[in-house]
């Protein structure tokens, strides 16, 4: 892990990794930390964070899910933070929804405050939930990123895939229909992206585990259309999307007879590379599909020359 350097002048953010980023999505965590370090932005992990409540808990027992989620927001407030950065799209949505419901519905707010008080925590007072894509877009900006890029892109064209939870129903990360911010950031550092009409369509979510054939079909459609549009890789901002698109490619190939071998990366990995991060610290070795391509694209020119 790359510990953030203290007091180097950049803005500081309190960071909520959630479970995915410490497990299947560890590459997201690694690349996010690296990217922020390269941007001179400080990421401070929230201490003693717990499960966000996730989408499934929300469906079964909304009340308890709100409490679980609110504890994280309250912890952030306790250390004086006004914002909490959550990279996982599911965490982002659940935290954002909790904040919204607590603010808008007095009954939920009352219950949450009461429980937080019993735990010795402050009631929620407008702590803002943020996503790294929107942080980079709004706080840093496309132009700044363009200036900071140090490496020339040597890979192929990319389909930016936003999934559902980061852009719906809240439109603060990006607009719900045809979001473009990930495309804009990547293009700023010289990465060509394709028009991808399926960028907010379903990756199957947990269907890959429950109704497997439906989940696979949805991922097949996403991969096929990305290739049809001339993309050689997919870049996403959600650990579940990344997981679904990445790990089932072999099975999809067996069933459909079409091989994709398409890298499925986090936007933080690609941006981090453009800013000078190295292969290992961006978690690039952790991808399953298209690993040859990844090695080719993300090996610095001097290293490529050394290979040959």
């Amino acid at each position: 892990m790359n510990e953030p350097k203290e007091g180097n002048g950049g803005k500081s953010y309190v960071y909520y990794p959630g479970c995915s980023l410490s497990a299947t999505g560890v590459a997201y965590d690694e690349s996010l930390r690296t990217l922020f370090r390269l941007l001179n932005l400080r990421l401070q992990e929230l201490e003693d964070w717990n499960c966000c409540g996730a989408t499934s808990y929300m469906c079964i027992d909304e009340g308890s899910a709100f409490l679980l989620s609110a504890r994280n927001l309250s912890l952030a407030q306790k250390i004086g933070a006004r914002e909490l950065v959550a990279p996982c799209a599911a965490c982002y949505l659940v935290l954002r929804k909790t904040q919204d419901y607590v603010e808008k519905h007095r009954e939920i707010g009352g219950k949450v405050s009461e429980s937080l008080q019993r735990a010795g925590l402050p009631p929620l007072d407008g702590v803002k939930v943020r996503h790294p894509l929107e942080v980079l877009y709004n706080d840093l900006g496309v132009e700044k990123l363009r200036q900071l890029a140090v490496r020339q892109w040597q890979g192929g064209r990319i389909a930016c895939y936003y999934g559902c939870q980061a852009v719906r129903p809240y439109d603060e990360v990006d607009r719900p229909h045809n979001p473009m911010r990930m495309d804009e950031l990547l293009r700023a550092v010289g990465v060509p992206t394709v028009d991808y009409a399926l960028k907010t369509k379903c990756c199957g979510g947990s269907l890959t585990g429950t109704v497997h054939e439906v989940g696979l079909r949805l991922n097949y459609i996403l991969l096929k259309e990305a290739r049809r549009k001339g993309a050689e890789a997919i870049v996403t901002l959600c650990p579940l999307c990344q997981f679904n698109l990445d790990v089932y490619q072999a099975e999809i190939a067996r069933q459909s007879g079409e091989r994709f071998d398409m890298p499925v990366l986090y936007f933080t990995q690609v941006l981090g590379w453009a800013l000078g991060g190295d292969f290992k610290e961006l978690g690039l070795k952790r991808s399953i599909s298209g690993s040859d391509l990844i090695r080719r694209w993300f090996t610095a020119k001097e290293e490529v020359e050394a290979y040959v």
Partner: protein
Amino acid sequence: MSEANGNVRIGVYVCHCGANIGSIVDCKAVAEYAAGLAGVAVARDYKYMCSDPGQDLIRQDVQEHGLNRIVVASCSPHLHEHTFRTAAGKAGLNPYYMHMVNIREHDSWVHEDRASATAKAIDMVRAAVRRVARHQALTRGSVPIHPAVLVVGGGIAGIHAALTLANAGKKVYLVEKQPSIGGHMAMFDKTFPTLDCAACILTPKMSSVKAHPNITLWTNAEVTKVDGYVGNFKVRVTRWPRFIEEDLCSGCLECIEACVYKEPKFADEFNLGLGKRKPIYIPFPQAVPQVPIIDPETCIQFKSGKCKKSCLAACGERKAINFQQKEQVEEIDVGAVILATGFKTFDPLRTPYYGYGQYPNVYTSLEVERLVNASGPTAGEVVLRDGRKPKSIGIIHCVGSRDVAANRWCSRVCCMYSLKLAHLLKEHTGAEVFNFYIDMRTPGKGFEEFYQQLLNEGVHFIRGRVAEVTDWALDPTEEGKLVLRVEDTLLGVVRRIPVDMVVLSVGLEPQPDAQDVRRLFNISCATEGFFLERHPKLAPVNTFTDGIFLAGCCQGPRDIPDTVAQAGAAAAEALALIDAGSVEVEPNTAYVLEEVCSGCRTCVPLCPYNAISFDLQKNRAQIHPVLCKGCGTCVAACPTGSIRQHLFEDEEIFEEIEGVLANV
């Protein structure tokens, strides 16, 4: 009750309004309570006070019981104040000795508990009894009417209203914001369901407007100020420069031909950017007036001052081109105003899932009207932006309409114009045409028959709201196509329909400046932003401001026949008003107690109607009783309490307050 009112004899009438009031308010109990109040000589409840026998009751009681004040507890004064004032007048009383209490809209319609609603009615009646005892006799004034009419908006509504009035011998001023009259109708190709050519039926009327001796037409002009009141509006019209002197121009259009731009180069507004025009242009061939306009944004002479001005040479001795032309202000007096400011079409960027602005071959219905039109940008040939002829076309109904995320209302015309476009597109291209609809709404003369005709012509109808327009292809048949994803609710399956061209049947919305116009003319808008009629059934062309009438889509979406009918109705209402010669004005106006007024002038700038002037010799404020609308602003603002208001005298209001609070 004070001594001064000892001789007051009040009659109280509590109306059941059938079950409207009677089912919630115990009207009998209210009348019985009122009978015991000081000054009340008689109190009754009655099923319908507004009926003839109800009104007769008042007259009989005035004779038999010597009544000199009347309280009617019934509906809103908006509906029947005039009725009961007249009844009081017929009974020999001053009409302003009658006071109404609204126990329907303010009580029975908004409460459910009978006991509380009855208690509230009792409080309101008690307040009215105490108030009416203080009422003074008032008389209505009368003012002459200026026999001219202003029509705002030169679409088919404004054109028809203006011609109707002008043919009746009235002076009409027609003001249009665009360089030509004609409005949306001039952009249409054919009209449904008869498929007659829109231009062929509209342009003769446009020419008549120009030629009519009773009509003064100002295009490229806007109403910028409105003062006055019914019968006597003072209106300022600003005529924006078009840089051509209208009275010198012969309409030869040689200047356009001569422009240094040999080919049209700039997006043409009339063709919605699908075609091109020069910096000096005429919006469309049949434009009225037949006078070009110069766009200073694109004209080289305006941008750099270094044009060789070949247009000027072409115009020659006529000298109609005037680069120095400034805006011109016209001040007119009119007795009535007809607003016919029209609508705008829904902006499909608000429904991004239909791909407008993202995929070039997604068009709005209005754009397609221009594409199929012989005088349109492609001379009537339907071709896509890449020059291909579409082989399949999808028409999506209800875009922006019947949608809680956009506009909730049905825009009324889209089903029918979609059928018309389907017919025309099929005729022009032979393409396979799909209509995607939620419900087919064909409730007009010949409409359903037209729908049947389209079914027989082989146009496809798929019932379902389209989810999205996308270029994502699942199989080779979808390559290079726009795919409409839709749940076919008759078939019960989700379908993907690949087409070459998508037409969005956009709904109708209020003009973007409707709120400014509303403020300018002091009228109201309904929640969706269309101008509000005085009564949805019984006064559909009137507004709450006397003398201002509505015609066409500014009041709500409607088709051409309905628009023309409504414009005729508005013209008839305006005619009835100005032909009466004079109009009565209500006496509930403010007045100045000269002996108390300190001459501080606080009130003068506050009056929204400019009714207050200042008499320098007397050093006192003066209120013009005809201009005053009785809003009460000056009464409240006067620091010395020297402004009072008829029907809202301090004693009347204090008695009313004490009356309503007497049981608290």
